[in-house]
């Protein structure tokens, strides 16, 4: 029996309009949009009504007005009597960025050391690293900050009998009074030598990579680089006659005079943030190194590479691919967590702008909006940078 050729013109199947997934999708989306627009409109209307009822001004006019409160740490010249809320914002932002920046560096160093220690063959080192990680990451960050601030730094001696750290200045419960470097006339030459060293170093590393690709000859880039970046400025520094003097603090009755003050809030927050985040980074580093297949190490040994080059050229580059994405989110977490400064009144963005300035002006919407968008901006910038770096080190597949 031959198959019958059914050549009916079927055409488009007849579907009820509401069963067409495309139309259905658009109906849902328009509904969703309508609900969101409705909520926003009602919210904004309510907001203006409430603001009018409470006699609160709106708009960003307050940014130019005089803030009139003191800030305990400022990287910009800040004057209580004359500086505006706009200045307060900048001071807070710089304080946040500075603590986040130093915190990220410290946390990375601690984290890598502890992460590698967790993989050590040495039983004592391994177990202490494990205990560190488990204890530090299972206690809330806020409690870390309180313990450092109230439990450790408050117990330091009174300014009258400050602990003398010798070359490092004085330490007491009002902070760390570090020697203040004062550059003299010719100091700029040392800075210039540093910059020149970096530039020359980049050139050399490019040239040596090219030469190695062509001839296979290696060049001691690392040693030359160290010599150029640190040795050259040092030589210039010595030959220009040590143009940098340190102003040492002198112990006084109420507080030491002179020097550079690092407030205890800064130290407590920095220690808490970096030790806490280090515990998470350590786990990331450990996971990254464990993720490199054992065959890679074995193959590298089979090619005749010793332990050092194997680690440097084979294991670490591959581990970095696994490490970088979660490391980025830890950096972002540290930056966002620096906002806990408000609990011990370190003058960061949330504390001075989202706290004091908000209480003085009452303009919650503008101030909180600006604060949140700032953090959002920092987060997006950091993740964009780390994505760019990640794309550079990522596996290039054929």
């Amino acid at each position: 029996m031959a198959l019958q050729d059914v050549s009916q013109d079927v055409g488009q199947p007849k579907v009820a309009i509401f069963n067409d997934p495309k139309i259905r999708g658009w109906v849902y989306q328009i509904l969703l949009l309508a609900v969101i627009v409705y909520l926003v409109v009602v919210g904004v209307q309510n907001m203006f009504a409430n603001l009018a009822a409470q006699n609160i001004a709106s708009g960003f006019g307050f940014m130019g007005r005089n803030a009139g409160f003191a800030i305990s740490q400022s990287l910009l010249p800040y004057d209580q009597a004359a500086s505006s809320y706009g200045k307060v914002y900048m001071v807070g932002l710089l304080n946040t960025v500075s603590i986040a920046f130093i915190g990220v560096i410290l946390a990375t160093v601690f984290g890598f050391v502890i992460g590698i220690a967790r993989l050590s063959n040495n039983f004592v080192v391994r177990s202490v690293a494990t205990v560190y990680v488990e204890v530090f990451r299972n206690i809330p960050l806020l409690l870390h900050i309180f313990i450092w601030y109230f439990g450790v730094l408050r117990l330091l001696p009174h300014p009258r009998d400050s602990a003398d750290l010798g070359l490092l200045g004085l330490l007491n419960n009002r902070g760390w009074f570090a020697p203040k470097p004062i550059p003299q006339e010719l100091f700029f030459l040392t800075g210039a030598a540093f910059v020149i060293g970096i530039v020359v170093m980049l050139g050399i590393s490019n040239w040596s990579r090219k030469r190695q690709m062509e001839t296979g000859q290696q060049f001691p880039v690392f040693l030359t680089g160290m010599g150029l970046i640190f040795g050259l400025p040092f030589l210039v520094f010595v030959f220009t006659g040590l143009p940098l003097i340190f102003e040492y603090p002198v112990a006084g009755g109420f507080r030491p005079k002179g020097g550079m003050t690092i407030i205890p809030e800064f130290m407590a927050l920095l220690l808490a943030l970096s030790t806490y985040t280090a515990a998470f980074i350590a786990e990331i580093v450990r996971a990254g190194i464990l993720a490199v297949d054992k065959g890679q190490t074995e193959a590298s040994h089979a090619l005749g590479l010793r332990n050092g080059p194997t680690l440097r050229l084979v294991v670490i580059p591959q581990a970095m691919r696994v490490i970088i994405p979660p490391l980025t989110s830890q950096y972002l977490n540290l930056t966002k967590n620096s906002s806990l400064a408000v609990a011990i009144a370190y003058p960061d963005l949330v504390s001075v702008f989202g706290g004091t300035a908000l209480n003085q002006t009452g303009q919650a919407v503008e101030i909180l909006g600006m604060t949140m968008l700032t953090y959002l901006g920092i987060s997006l910038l950091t993740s964009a940078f780390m994505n760019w770096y990640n794309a550079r080190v990522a596996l290039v597949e054929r």
Partner: protein
Amino acid sequence: MADTSKNASLAFVRNDMLTEAAAPSGAVGTVAWIRNNLFSNWYNTVLTLLVLYIAYVIIPPVIRFGFIDAVWTGTDRQACSTIAQGGIMPDGWFGACWAYVDAYFNQFIYGRFPDESEWRVNVVFLMFFGGLAPLLIPSVPMKRANIIFVTAIFPVASFVLLTGGNLHYSGFLLPDFLMEPSALRFWTEIVLITLILLAIGVGIARGTDSDPKPTIVAILGFMGAIAVILALFAVDFGLSEVPTDRWGGLLVTLVIAVTGIAASMPIGIALALGRRSNMPIVKLVSVVFIEFWRGVPLITVLFMSSVMLPLFLPEGVHFDKLLRALIGVALFSAAYMAEVIRGGLQAIPKGQYEGAMALGLSFWQMMRMIILPQALTMVIPGIVNTFIGLFKDTTLVLIIGLFDFLGSIQLSFTDPTWASPVQQSTGFAFAAFVYFCFCFGMSRYSAYMERRLDTGHKS
């Protein structure tokens, strides 16, 4: 060919084996282990000694503070201060004052919850841990009944127990000139909403030529359940009302953490599905929502919910302080939860989706019966980790003036009865211990689930 077996006296081959000798004493035993593991070369030796020294500096003082020098009984600050500070301890003494923790224990757990009603909190704790423990142990049977208890009975019961129930509804949809504000108006509104939903459901079913019966059953079931719950909240069980500003301590910590995670689950699932959706607007809304909350610190979210949220509400509508914090926490953790769940959704092989579609399942049937059960099981460790993060983050509510566990410990420092130099150290040590026990326990569970779910082959 010579036959060696004939003259055995000339055998070159040994006929019997030597007995096994013990390993050389330098390769086994404690000493060898120590030498191989701790002092194998010079830098290992240096490291070992350095780490042992650090441990020696840290551990004995901690043990002395916590146990040997600690004060276990006492009635006021005298027990925990030195003679120079007006107490009874010798000068130079520095130890924990556990007597103070004991005196404040109730406040740390219940806050200012009325003494005669503390049993209600205890019942809630008991139901919580009693319901959760068997749910978390995979081998315990009756998971379905357990889930119903934890997701339906427990929340309703704990709401009634903690607040006292006996709510009075007045309704708010129908205008006042039609009906006076009263419980009757509220229930009329519920019936009207049900009828409107039924009309829409039946209308859509008619329009798409499908059977209206399942829609009707679903709507009636859903609205019926809501009505029963609301009715239970309104019943007067004879429990006194406890306003939330009297809640505190561990109770508030657990309420925020558990409500936050429970509320963030459905929102997180919706956002994760939205982010993977083909519909551009839905996808955009989900991405913006998730990235916004993940990009800002929790403390600004809490500030926003306590300062800004009231501005967006119509006049006369006031949210409780705790409820406002809960909204902030829930939205914040929903964004993190969404990313965890998205990871699970992405790990499901495409064949599962195609198989479900080939069976003719609708989108929601496919999600409910095929995809989500697999995806959610896969991300249990991730969910537990999010929960640990949330549990630690609940401490932040003390900045907006709620007294959670850490907050009530801080509050106790203001009481002069126990004021002494060791009070803060003791309080923080106790807080650290309690948080550590909770978080460490949960992280062990998460690691256990990870091992259990690890099938040994990676896709």
